[in-house]
């Protein structure tokens, strides 16, 4: 908003944006967790008091260039809010049939595995320390990382009644074909 209204021509034509201002302002407040949220309280001084303030020229106009890095601050706030929400939904007190203790441990670990997704993967064979990461291995790891059920590899996968009731999600479970018969 600040960038577009710093242009004199766009500023003159700003009335065309009026119909979007209300929903944009609502989305902005929602993004920070609502008006009662502590995150909104921390950064509301960066924004106008109401949707009308977005276009009335008091805050954003060619004569009042907006230099504050609002986007950066807003995105940081969103990150903080999402992280806090993630920590809340994966806290020990939330352990239930749909969130196992193992899920909590995995979610709370200071993992660096996420870096893998930002790097090109080597498909070379294992040699001199080069890691063997085949497509199937990669898929298996991603499923673990995302907390998804493993791929059906054994062939005896079946829907288990207990698991369906407990997890409220339908996915096939496999039984280990070795002696210990674990799932």
């Amino acid at each position: 908003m600040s960038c577009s209204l710093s242009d004199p021509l766009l500023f003159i034509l700003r009335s065309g944006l009026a119909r979007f201002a209300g929903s944009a302002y609502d989305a902005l407040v929602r993004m920070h967790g609502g008006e009662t949220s502590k995150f909104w309280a921390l950064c509301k001084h960066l924004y106008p008091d109401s949707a009308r303030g977005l276009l009335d020229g008091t805050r954003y106009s060619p004569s009042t260039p907006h230099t504050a890095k609002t986007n950066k601050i807003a995105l940081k706030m969103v990150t903080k809010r999402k992280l806090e929400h993630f920590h809340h939904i994966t806290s020990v007190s939330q352990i239930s049939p749909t969130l196992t203790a193992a899920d909590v441990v995995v979610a709370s670990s200071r993992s660096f595995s996420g870096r893998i997704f930002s790097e090109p993967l080597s498909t070379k064979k294992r040699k001199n320390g080069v890691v063997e990461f085949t497509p199937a291995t990669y898929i298996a790891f991603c499923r673990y990382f995302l907390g998804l059920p493993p791929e059906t590899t054994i062939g005896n996968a079946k829907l288990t009644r207990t698991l369906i009731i407990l997890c409220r999600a339908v996915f096939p479970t496999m039984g280990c074909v070795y002696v210990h018969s674990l799932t």
Partner: protein
Amino acid sequence: MSGNHAASKCPSSSRCVFLRHTMLRNVLVAHAKEAGLEAVPEPDTYDLLLGQFEAKDCKRVFPKRMSVAYEAGFKALSQASDFINSAACTFSSEEKQSYIQNHLDKLPLVEGAVGLRVDASFRNPETDEIMWVDVSVVHTSSPSYISGELKSIAKRKLCADAAQLHLMPDALQNEASPVMLQREIAKIHKYSRLVTVAKKQKADGTRTSIPTFAPFVVSDCGELAPKAYDVQEWLVKQYRLKCSKEGRRADGCTTVELVRQFRHSLKMGVQMAVAAGLGTMMQFAGLAWRGLGPA
């Protein structure tokens, strides 16, 4: 779903557990070589201790698993070694040898016992700095570890909340998983026998420097234990020394850039090895066990 079955003793995935371990060790060895170190994967304990103990005796003197009887025997052997090196000892050379041999023979020999062996030995040929490293990967969400982990998570959360409330630094922010710390302590205790012997060799003058032992413990989630960070930074330091010594390069890359690249490559290598190993374990867990080809 959380990989507990794959990380348990399922025979189909047990080979992949070794594969994960080997890949992780290879990453460290490859980077140590890049840092200009002499890196030996799985060195013989005989060579590691400069041939002080016969190869056949190493298994008896340094078994992988320790019994109470063995611990008592090793303590007696250590005391005997201290005694013959002290000024109070008036034994002749042959008597000293037979005295030590006598204590060696008293150590209990367990049939089928495996000898202790570090995963990798790194040596800087210029400074003669030596580091022995043993690699280990922990599956922190295993049922046997879960209660300890949950307690630690709850404690960390409480501490973080209190720190936020009182605007104070979070003291437990960087605390590692308790299981990983326990594994580190266990490894250090296990290999302390080798370090003790090396220290004695240094005192006797048969060794020029005392090796450092460091366990490299990583979790399946990609978390590094404190000593693993030490190993990582030690390797980076060695690489920095190598770059500084080489001086200006023809390609124009500065030492800072190269070190940054090396550290990133090491970190990524470790994460990739753990992830690839875990992925392979998940892939093969539960399959009918009939061999998966050569390692």
